[in-house]
């Protein structure tokens, strides 16, 4: 295969596959947050804070995939 084509394919696969895990993770965090808020509505402020923190950590994995994809596209 052409090098250009491989580059595009690799970048697409990197971000596409790399987004699966964080997607599931963020979904689970959202589920937990919604359930916690439903059980204890007064604590929604703290729950929101912790939820966004956890989402950010899950999202960081997707960001590494994004970095790899961008490097593949524009640097390699």
């Amino acid at each position, binding site marked *: 295969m052409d090098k250009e084509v491989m580059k595009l394919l690799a970048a697409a696969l990197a971000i596409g596959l790399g987004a699966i895990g964080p997607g599931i993770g963020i979904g689970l965090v959202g589920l937990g947050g919604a359930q916690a808020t439903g059980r204890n509505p007064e604590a929604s402020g703290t729950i929101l804070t912790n939820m*966004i923190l956890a989402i950010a950590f899950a999202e960081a994995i997707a960001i590494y995939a994004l970095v790899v994809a961008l490097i593949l596209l524009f640097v390699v």
Partner: protein
Amino acid sequence: MKRVVTVLVVLVLIGLCAFSCVIGPLGQKWVVQPHVQMAAETFPIGPVRVPNSLMGMLLAGLVLIGLFAAGTRHIRAGRPEAMVPRGLQNLVEAIYEFLANFLRGILGERSEKMLPLLITFFLFILVANWVKLIPGFETIGLIEHAHKGEGHAVRQVGPLLFLTHEKGKYTLIPILRAANTDLNVPLALALISVFMTQVYGVQALGWGYFSRFINIKALTSGGLMGVMNFLVGLLETLSEFTKIISFGFRLFGNIFAGMVLLVVIPSLVPFVAPVAFYILELFVGAVQALVFMMLTAAFTAVATAGHGEHH
């Protein structure tokens, strides 16, 4: 009556969507195809070439400074009217109070010194993300010769030049571009954030703060667990650097993807659909600003809470 109106509105929207789904692919013949570039374009001012993301950043800064200068003018002048806030001052005070209370909840008593930086992070990123939704960003600019052979032809209408779909040798250099779609800006913010976390840590714990990273005391005193603690410290050091990357690329990735989305969607479905994505972008911009501020606050809270405190 109300229901009839609702049904009519929905029908018209569906019709417009269907119409634009048909027209969109046809229109691609006449519309300039989206061109996405990761590095900021530069345009000349006098002898130097200025990146257009700098212009977007300055615009965001001006909006923010203008808003808060106008909102706090009575306070700064020490006028008695400041005691009973009216109009803009109300808005500015409400924004500040909301954010300050939110942050006090995370940081506790030590928050006062960190509030200015954290609130500036939030407001700057928020405004920088929202000003890019003004029509004219990334579409109005200077026409220049394209570097490679991928340019467009131009057509003159009155005093204005437009790019056309035909191949040619010209390209558009937008004057304004969202600050956070240039990797340099989010990375600079990330560097400031991580650096200031260290500063607050040293302020709160003295130079002993750095034993978090290189824990010689644990290595010399505590056998196997001491070695483990030392290695954990090395991991902490590594995680400070990953923080810079994940802060920077989180903001950049989200806002850049938003920009690409807002270019691609109108070229596929020109009517109605872009509105939904504009609303999505408003939301994403606010969430990213909030996340940046909150993560900085949370990391600062971790850094200022001493190692010994929870034993």
